[in-house]
């Protein structure tokens, strides 16, 4: 099956700092999503981004499908950004969403 690797596994930030999370995948994909899991376990859709660049407020994401990676940028981080960020992909010609291991982010006030 497809491999999805996220880095770094853990990230500690001071409030107001910027950060970049990376997602590498081992095969061609036709779906890539970024999620934020809050402390209550709920998965929040951040971006559906199989290719290109999108921005939503302080968050933006870029996927370079030909090079098999995606980046999630968090700017001016806030304590509410704490949680686990997951990248998930669907392999081309597949229908299953495969998750990376996640990046655990802690934003300190």
């Amino acid at each position, binding site marked *: 099956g497809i491999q999805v690797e996220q880095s770094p596994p853990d990230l500690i930030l001071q409030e107001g700092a910027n950060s970049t999370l990376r997602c590498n995948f081992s095969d061609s994909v*036709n*779906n890539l*999503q970024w*999620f934020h899991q809050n402390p*209550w*376990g*709920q*998965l929040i*859709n951040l971006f*559906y981004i*199989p290719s290109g660049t999108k921005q939503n407020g302080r968050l933006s994401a870029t996927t370079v499908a030909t090079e098999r990676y995606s980046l999630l940028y968090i700017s001016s981080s806030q304590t509410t950004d704490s949680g686990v960020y*997951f990248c*998930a992909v*669907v392999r*081309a*010609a597949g*229908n*299953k*969403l*495969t*998750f*990376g*291991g*996640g990046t655990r982010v802690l934003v300190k006030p």
Partner: protein
Amino acid sequence: SAVISQKPSRDICQRGTSLTIQCQVDSQVTMMFWYRQQPGQSLTLIATANQGSEATYESGFVIDKFPISRPNLTFSTLTVSNMSPEDSSIYLCSTRETGPNTEAFFGQGTRLTVV
């Protein structure tokens, strides 16, 4: 986008018992998926539930342990049977329309603790 209502949101169960988790979608969807997230881990797909056919289980998951129903295009249940403490996890349902470029949506999750 699909809105998924999942319940219960959390439960504490005795070992040896079973728990049924329900997911209701606000629109008709072809594919529904069930995931397990063990403590501190990522999400792992349990099975794909399609209306009108048997669920398709991933390696390591069996129907006797995780029976799934999909009676119509807006509803599905997952039962965790004969529970042990190792079944303590978050269980999540998800939907995604068929086709190569469609976004997945998740229910709120069920946090299960087996004692």
